[in-house]
Structure formats: C-alpha cells, structure tokens
C-alpha cells in the first residue's frame, strides 16, 4: 500500500483539476459572494460535477456511486481547495454519504444515496451545538414518544444546511448518542442560513419538538459511527486545507520571483528564502501525514483515528502558516480584496474550525495515546 497516487488516481486528479479550474475557479466564488447568491454555489456547476461522477465518488456502486475510497475523495478535495470551489460535496457526498452508508438502514440508503450521488439531493450532518467542535457533548434531546421519537434542541455551523433536503442529526437519547435522518420539510424544523466569513454557507437549525417515526433512527450505531463519519470528513477537510496551502504557496513563490525592491528580486533576500523553505517543508509534512490518513481510512478505518487526528492538525497548521505568509510576502497587495489571498485565508480559517481545529486534534491524539 503506497502513499503515492496510482495511475487511475493521478488521472482523476488531472481531470478534476481541469474541470474545477475551468468551471469553479476562485472568480466564481467571488461572483457568488458579490451577488449574495442564495444557494452559495452554482447549480449548473454542481450538476456538471455530479454528472462526471464526482459527487458520488465515495458512494457504493450498488447505490449509483463510483464506489471509490478516501484517497479519491482526498484527490478531489485538494483540487477544490486549490480553486476555492463552492460545492456542497464535503457536506453531502463525503460526510453524510459516509454516515448513511455505514449506519443507515437499507431503506434509508436506497432513498437517499442514489440521489446524493447524482447531486439531486443534498444531505448534511448536524453535530455541533456550541462554538467549538464537541461531538461527545451532543445535547439535542431525542425522547421516545409513542412508537416514534421527539427531537428538541438546536445545532449550529451545519455546512450547507440552508440548502440540504436531508439533515443527519446527532442527538442524545437515553442509551447515548443516536443518529436520525430528518427530512428538511418535517414540521417543526427551522433552518436559518448563516453566511460565513469564507463566503460559503452554513446554517443554524432549531428543532421544536419534531416528531419522527421509529425508523428515522439510523440503526447502525451511535457515537462510534458518528466519529468514523467525522473522521472521513476531517481527512477530506484536511485535503482541502492542503490544496489551499499548495495554491497559496505556488502563487507566493511566483511573486518572490517577480517582485523587485531595492533593485533586486525580493526572492533573493535570505530572510524570505528561509521562510519559504520552512513553509515548503511544513506543506510536505502535511501532504505525507494526509496520505497516511487517507490510506488508513481505506485499509483499516477502525484504526484510522490517530492518523486522521495527525493529518487534520498538521494540514490545519500548515495551511494557516501558508495563508499568513502569502499575505505577508505580498505586502500591501496581499491585504487587498483585488487579490485572492483573503479568500484563501478565510476559507482556511473555516476549515480549521470545521470538525475540530489543530488544538482539538492534538488533544485527541494525546488522549488516544494515554497521556
């Protein structure tokens, strides 16, 4: 098992790179932001993305997907990061699809996975309730009522929750964490769009005594299934962060070779050369850590948590360093909205926070290693 891409994976990378650069570049995110687009992504781009089989890349073939794994998801997410493509792929095709596939009933899978793979339905996981990621502290209440369930509570920072037709809700039942498939149009579900700093969208969700039938509960597990789906999403978010780091670093390196001050190229200054070299090494470390995590998710998902924590922490801190150095090395121009560095910085910040930031994952690693 290799940490390098095989031929098919390299081809997937190349085709995704050219598709996204052409159809969902940074300029598109800028237009969506400036026009205050209600969806926050371009419907025709998302449809084309799904037509190419990308939206269902990780959905099983039996449900109309490509049946590929974490490595392929990582390949796509890196290219999404490079282009800041606004697409509900991470929320729907990665996290929600994974959770349905591992814990959903046959009926839930048949009802939703083919539509997720075709991009016709958007599903998303609602887990966080406070301002930090704390999946073990889920408090939204799931109470038995007659033959079914009543759900009450609220969720925040639900990625693409404003356009999702299916919410996968983590709730607290008497027997621990329980997961529910909740159609958006169920009575009592309130969804409020929150435009985030990165011009992507999330939602606050309030459930007011929402009634659900018994079979709305995902039969295949609680807290453990939740963590495994989250780990899939964490690695995917790490891949998007790596894509951001790569793109920003490439642009910054070009600038160091073009910009002249004091009669010479600023890339000749050792103060900048050393910082660029250190950033380069940090990004290569992040790339290797991510490759390890993606491979672990595909070969031994139960043992992948440690590798995922390492990858999310490392990609988060490498991308944070990359966007900061990107702005600083571009000087005043780096601060302008005319260049794209602000957009990369904003997206990196949101991805850091999503599914646990570097500090959270370091703490998790320490707990897993018993100290």
């Amino acid at each position, binding site marked *: 098992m*290799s*940490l*390098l891409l095989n031929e098919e994976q390299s081809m997937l990378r190349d085709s995704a790179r050219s598709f996204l650069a052409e159809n969902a570049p940074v300029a598109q995110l800028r237009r969506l932001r400036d026009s205050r687009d209600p969806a926050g992504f371009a419907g025709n781009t998302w449809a084309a993305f799904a037509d190419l089989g990308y939206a269902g890349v990780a959905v099983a073939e039996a449900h109309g997907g490509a049946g590929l794994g974490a490595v392929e998801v990582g390949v796509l997410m890196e290219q999404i990061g490079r282009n800041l493509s606004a697409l509900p792929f991470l929320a729907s095709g990665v996290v929600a699809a994974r959770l349905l596939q591992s814990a959903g009933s046959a009926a839930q899978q048949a009802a939703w996975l083919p539509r997720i793979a075709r991009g016709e339905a958007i599903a998303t996981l609602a887990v966080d309730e406070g301002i930090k990621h704390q999946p073990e502290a889920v408090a939204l209440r799931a109470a038995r009522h007659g033959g079914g369930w009543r759900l009450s509570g609220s969720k925040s920072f639900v990625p693409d929750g404003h356009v999702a037709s299916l919410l996968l809700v983590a709730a607290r039942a008497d027997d621990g964490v329980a997961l529910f498939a909740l159609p958006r149009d169920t009575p009592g579900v309130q969804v409020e769009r929150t435009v985030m700093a990165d011009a992507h969208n999330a939602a606050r969700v309030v459930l007011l005594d929402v009634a659900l039938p018994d079979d709305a509960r995902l039969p295949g597990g609680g807290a453990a299934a939740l963590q495994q789906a989250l780990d899939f999403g964490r690695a995917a978010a790490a891949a998007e962060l790596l894509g951001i780091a790569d793109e920003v670093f490439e642009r910054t*390196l070009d600038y*160091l*070779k073009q910009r002249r001050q004091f009669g010479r*190229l600023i*890339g*000749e200054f*050792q103060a900048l*050369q*050393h910082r*660029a*070299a*250190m950033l*380069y*090494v940090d990004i*290569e*470390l*992040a*790339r*290797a*850590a991510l*490759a*390890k995590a993606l491979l672990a998710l595909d070969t031994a998902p139960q043992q992948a948590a440690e*590798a995922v*924590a*390492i990858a999310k*922490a*490392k990609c988060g801190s490498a991308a944070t360093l990359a966007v900061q150095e990107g702005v600083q090395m571009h000087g005043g121009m780096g601060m302008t909205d005319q260049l794209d560095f602000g957009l990369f910085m904003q997206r990196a910040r949101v991805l850091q926070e999503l599914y646990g930031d*570097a*500090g959270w*994952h*370091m*703490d998790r*690693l*320490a*707990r897993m*290693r*018993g*100290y």
Partner: protein
Amino acid sequence: MSETTSLESFRAETRAWLEANCPPEMRQPLRGEQDYCWGGRNASFQSEAQRLWLQRLGERGWTVPTWPRDYGGGGLTAEQAQVLQQEMRRLNCRPALWSFGIWMLGPALLKFGSEAQKREHLPKIARGEIRWCQGYSEPNAGSDLASLQTRAEDRGDHYRVNGQKIWTSYADQADWIFCLVRTDSAAKKHTGISFVLFDMATPGVSTRPITLISGKSPFCETFFDDVRVDKHNLVGQPGGGWDVAKYLLTHEREMIGAIGERAQPQPLGAMAAQSLGRDATGRLDDPQLRARIAEFEVDEAAFRALLQRFGEQARAGQAHGAFSSALKYYGAELNKRRHELIMSALGSGALIWESAGGAAEDAASNDGAAARDWLRSKANSIEGGTSEVQLNVIAKRILELPGA
C-alpha cells in the same frame, strides 16, 4: 510464479531465517549508544550475541541488502529489502551494524569507485571489518566546505597529504578515512578538490578528541603530516572530488535526518506521564507540557510519514535530488525539540551529572545520560551542513529562488 507470490515466499523464508539466526538478546530494544555495534579491526563487542548477529547478517550480505552480491551485499530488490526491513522490525531485531561505510562511503563507491576499489572495500564494509571516518570539515571550511585547504601534492605514483581536519566523527576509533583534499590550488575552489581513501594507521596521521558540552568526545581533530596516499586510492577523477562529496552528503543528510527514526525512541507522552503522573481524568499532570508534547508528536508522526513517502518516491525514481536537505533540516530540528521536551519531562532528575548511587533519582539519571544526549543533540543542526545551509539548498535547488 507471480511477483506477489514470490515476494510472499521471500517473506516467509526471511522470517524463518531471522527467527533462527537473530539471538534473543539482539531483539531487546536499544537502550542507547552503548548498544551500538560499529565493528572495525579493533571491534569491541558487548556480548557474544552481538558478535554473532553481525557475523551472521554480514555473511548473508543483509547488513547492506541492496548492494550487489559481488561486493558483499545481499543482492535484494528494493521490494525484497523492504520486506526484510518489515520483518526485522516485526521481530524487533536491532541493527547489526552502525557504519559510516554503509550510510555514506558505500553509495559513493558504488557510483564513482573503480572495480578494484569496490572489490577491495565494499565487502569489508558489509561485514563490519573496517570502520570508516569522514575527513571533510576543516577549521576554516565549515559551512563553506569547498574552501578546504588540506593539500595533496602529486609525487608521481602517490600523493603527499598535509593539513588538518576537524569534527571527524570517531577518527580515533576508525581504521580508514575518506577524505577531501586539494590537488590543484590554481583551479577554482570547487574544481581543485579530490576524494581519496587511506588507512588511519599510515605514518603521519594523528588524532585528538575534542571534548564537547556533553562531556563526551565523539569528534576529533585529525592531522596529516606528510601522509603517503597511493594513487589507486583516488576515487573518481583528480579534481572531481566535489561531485563525489556532494553525492555522499545527500546520503549523510538522509542519515542524520533519520537518526530519531533509527533509534526507535520511546513515545514521549507516555514517558512524560510516567515521570510526572496523571491527573484525575488521566491526562498528563502538566497541561502546558502536555500541549507541547502533543504538538511534537503530530510533527514527529508527520515526519515519519514523510520519510516513508520519500522512500517510495526514491524507489519510483520520482524523488527530488535535493530533498535530503529537507529531511536533514527537519529531522535535526525535531530531534532537538525531542530532547528539550525530555529534559522538561524529567525535571531536576535529569540534571544529576554524576550518580552518587544512593537515591533512586541518582540511579535513574544514569550519569546524566538524558542531559548528555540533550546537549549532544544540539550538534544535529550543525553537523552535515547547518540547518541554515539546508534551507539555502531548499530555496535554491527545490524552490528555484533567485540569487547566488
């Protein structure tokens, strides 16, 4: 037979051979430098098991699994060598031999050496019979290595060598030296250098150990006073020594970068928790140190993944020639961080320099082993090219930034 089946049968044979031939004492974790076996003409073995393990592995050529059999190697493919490494790790087999001959000179001789040189030197390196040292740095040629001044005067069939080297690792214990000398003082600084080999027992060679801040003396000053070196001991062309030296340095950098990895160190967090205790929730009872260790362990794991990825790239012919500088830079900085954290975790217990023997901490301090290792690690970012030189190499050769 398919490639996979033959590799799997190789694995089974290898496992059986290791189980039959690796003495149980050689499957205990390394305790530290005292357990390293360096071989050589005057080798001192810690135990019969250590001697036997070197002899058996050396006879099979598995101290240097991928070198050709004709030169004392194992003749294994890269895939087979990886299987051997995995199986040795699985059984916790210690490395049988620590050797600059294997890590540094060998690869350079395979690439630049004459047939006669390969046949003379490589098998002795493989079996650990000759211990080598490296004559590179001089008092006025450190980071700027190419300004070295040790002179080799052409005397027809031999050179007469005069000058001084410094920071020669274990020169006082080495049998032979591979050495950079200036054969042409009129040429430009990089082109007047040649790469020669000679016996440290040759008249005119003397060494003087240098005491370091750790109290130990792994490095020497080495003096050459009219040393006779036969011309058949010149590697490559006269004046072509810099190419050999650069090639060899990339191997040295990979070696230093991978030091922490080869020594298979104890996980830091567990060690600190053992030393300082845990709070009621099971967390290391020093939140600040715990956070620093967790950050270190993320970087350490990422570095291990990077070494693995680099190895795969190298086997696939995709690695960048200057990437060893990235590994050297990061591995050295990481190892320094490790030792700073170990010192914090062990507190004043690590500061007892000489054990009086009475208290438990005294015995645990092992004559200041942790403190001495901590001080020794400071050289990691200096030896084999400073961290600053590595960053220069990355900036120029990998990132292709402008400037000299």
